[in-house]
């Protein structure tokens, strides 16, 4: 019966072309608007490191006190002093710290001009904690951190640019006029949003090109290319040393804690650390620390851009209106055929069969709307760049799951919208219809 009803449904699409066209367009526009905004929304609100997002925590300590902090919240990164002390303490399974660097890289050969490459000055644990994949070699070792070695890891892209993609492990790279030995080439790696680098606002930035040891970068006085937040407390001293050991925050720190018990233990350790600072006279307030896991952190930093939420909301509202419209039009379409329904009922069709027939027919309208919606969605993908920053817009793409979702949403929504008109159709009194004809 289903196949027959489907055939009837397809045929009836042609019977009242005006009404059908209106419905298909309403469903198509509605579903396309929702899908375009949804594709952006899912891209920006996804879990960047699914297996580990509950085990990675960023560490925050209030070094400003109730007078200067942000409504009770500690600043969004650590001072050099705290970050290096906590990493040295090594109380978590793994711990890393980093800051953004943008050294100039001088390619070999006299004619080439230097260029800027973005990177992180970090430690050996970084690569394992954030699952950085490697093409050649690997990360450096903890001993390189301790020995302040001049080593570097470069990205696949930088390796292409400098060495034509060859295995460059063991070769040298010149950054800010210092040379570093390459120990690893990372494969393409670009988690979105880049959850660990939110402090400097790089949630959707370009992937970084290089990594070098934190201690080494500090030694050669490589300045931070990321954010440096000294808060409202203007007393941050004079010169690099005062800044480095002062109360400006610029070093994000992350720890890996395998289970809740470890997290609890680490929180206690942090509180004790802050209490110690209080006893030493550095903090004049009770310990105020935070340990936020990846999703908590993404939430706290409001990574999902407001445009994305608002436009998704508007699109959904729009879709609802389109469906209300569809209900009205389906009602008109079905009730026009009251006589036909009367004949079927009089010939013995139970109400259930009428339901089947008209819901399948609504499904065909939904399918047609879905196909139109798919075309409009594909078209709309070009328009996304208009609304969002380019780095966010390029995250939106039409993949198989989006195609399936579009069709499914269109059909399900139309069938749901058809329930009321179908109910009305099924209540048609056979005798009445037969008599009046």
């Amino acid at each position, binding site marked *: 019966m289903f196949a027959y009803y489907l055939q009837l449904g397809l045929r009836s699409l042609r019977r009242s072309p*005006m*009404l059908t066209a*209106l419905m298909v*367009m*309403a469903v198509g*526009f*509605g579903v396309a*608007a929702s899908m375009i905004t949804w594709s952006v929304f899912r891209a920006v609100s996804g879990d960047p490191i699914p297996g580990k997002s509950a085990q990675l925590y960023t560490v925050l300590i209030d070094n400003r006190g109730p*007078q*200067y902090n942000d409504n009770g919240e500690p600043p969004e990164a650590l001072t050099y002093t705290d970050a290096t002390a906590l990493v040295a303490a090594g109380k978590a399974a793994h711990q890393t710290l980093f800051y953004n660097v*943008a050294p*100039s890289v*001088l390619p070999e050969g006299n004619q080439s*001009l*230097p*260029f*800027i490459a973005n990177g992180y000055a970090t430690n050996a644990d970084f690569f394992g904690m954030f699952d950085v994949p490697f093409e050649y070699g690997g990360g450096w070792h903890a001993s390189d951190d301790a020995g302040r070695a001049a080593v570097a890891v470069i990205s696949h892209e930088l390796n292409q640019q400098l060495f034509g993609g060859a295995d460059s492990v063991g070769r040298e790279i010149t950054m*800010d*006029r210092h040379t570093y030995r390459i120990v690893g080439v990372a494969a393409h790696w670009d988690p979105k949003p880049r959850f660990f680098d939110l402090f400097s606002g790089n949630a959707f930035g370009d992937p970084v090109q290089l990594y070098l040891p934190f201690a080494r970068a500090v030694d050669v*006085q490589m*300045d931070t290319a990321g954010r440096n937040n000294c808060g*409202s407390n*203007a007393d941050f001293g*004079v*010169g*690099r040393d005062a*800044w480095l050991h002062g109360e400006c925050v610029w070093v994000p720190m992350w720890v890996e804690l395998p289970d809740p018990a470890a997290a609890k233990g680490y929180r206690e350790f942090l509180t004790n650390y802050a209490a110690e600072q209080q006893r030493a006279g550095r903090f004049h307030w009770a310990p105020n620390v935070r340990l936020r896991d990846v999703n908590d952190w993404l939430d706290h930093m409001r990574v999902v*851009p*407001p*445009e994305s*939420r*608002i*436009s998704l909301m*508007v*699109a959904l*509202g*729009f879709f*609802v*209106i*389109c469906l*209300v*419209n569809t*209900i*009205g*039009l389906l*009602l*008109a379409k079905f*009730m*026009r055929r009251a006589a036909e329904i009367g004949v079927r009922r009089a010939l013995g069709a139970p109400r259930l069969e009428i339901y089947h027939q008209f819901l399948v027919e609504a499904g065909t309208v939904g399918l047609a709307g879905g196909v139109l919606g798919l075309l409009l969605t594909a078209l709309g993908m070009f328009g996304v760049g*208009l*609304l*969002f*920053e380019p780095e966010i817009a390029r995250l939106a793409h039409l993949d198989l799951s989006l195609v399936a979702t579009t069709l499914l949403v269109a059909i399900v929504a139309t069938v749901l919208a058809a329930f*009321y008109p179908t109910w*009305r159709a099924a209540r048609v009194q056979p005798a009445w219809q037969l008599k*009046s004809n």
Partner: protein
Amino acid sequence: MKLHPMIAALRKHKAGVVLIALQIALTLAIVCNAIFIIGQRVERVGRPTGLDEGNLFVVSQQWVGAPSADTPDGVAKLDAMLKEDLATLRSLPGVASAAPINSLSLLNSTWAGALSTKPGTNFTDRGSNVRTAYYFTDEQVLPTLGLRLVAGRNFNAADVQNHGFREQFTYPVVIVTQALADKLYPKGDAVGKTIYVDGSSSPSTIVGVVARMQTPAVGWGDNFAWHATLVPVRLDANFTRVAVRAKPGQLEAAMKATAPALYQVNRLRVLDDDSVRPFTDIRAKAYRADVGMAVLMGVICLILIGVTAAGIVGLTSFWVGQRHRQIGVRRALGARRIDILHYFQMENLLIAGAGAVIGIVMAVGLNMWLMSRYEMDRLPVFYALIGVVAVLALGQCAVFVPARRASNVPPVVATRAA
């Protein structure tokens, strides 16, 4: 025309009536708020920065292996390099003037602080302090940016100092914007008066007031968007930024000549694609989200109105078909065509009116919800009224075609069997 029979007839079509009214209500709610958002964004995007934006471009670059900005020796070297660059840029044939500057309106890189008329205040205290954004620059800034001096004097070469960017230094003289001057000295006599920056106790003198200049912060800095302070200090760092005014009509040529000329002075620097940017580019980037949002809302509104109109046409046509015979009877009993036309128009007005009333409530509700979740202002009554008139007009336009078809039903239909 009596409303009573019309309402009685509508009660036979409860579902259709509710659907049309609901659709009109939702359309009104969304379109009102969307147009309000569009209006706000357009207003934001249209704000003048106070700069003479045509022929202005910005050169941002970074030194390779620069001396440290934390030693007096390094600062002196960096300053010499910056001055050399400035001289080079100023001597380019297409360039009218150039000034070093740490940031620029709409550039979203802000050196924020606070000014007070009293020394040594706690500068997080909003009561005695006014938030501002600093521009560190030199005496050529006014002609280069095209700022209009309304009181006092411009900086002169003797005012200009240089400092490493991490040094702590005093600001003996400053120029402020009119908005900031009015905030500090509401009587309008700011020139020659003393202010204190960032809670310090060393005085700064306001030597001039410019009409208008926007701060670099777009978005988070909107509450102090016009509170700019110009400080005659060349900041020395491994990164430099210079604002350049090209001679009229020579913007392209001057921009093209910039990189080669600078490389000739010193090759150990990084100038990439983004280093030399016209100001129009900066403006477009700063407001792209606003423009995009306005376009999106506009498109959604248009489609929405189309869909609603289509829905009304569809349902009314259905009703006309259903009442074919009744219309015939009315005509046979003496109703004129215009009566039938008016009947359907009136009916639509009634439904649309009911929808509009619900729609206003929903529009206000949606606006309140947006205000609580996002930074939105209250929807002015004006917008809601415009919206009501618009949906009523939309209903009338949409109903016209089916209503005219109804009025063309001949009286003879009454005599035929249904």
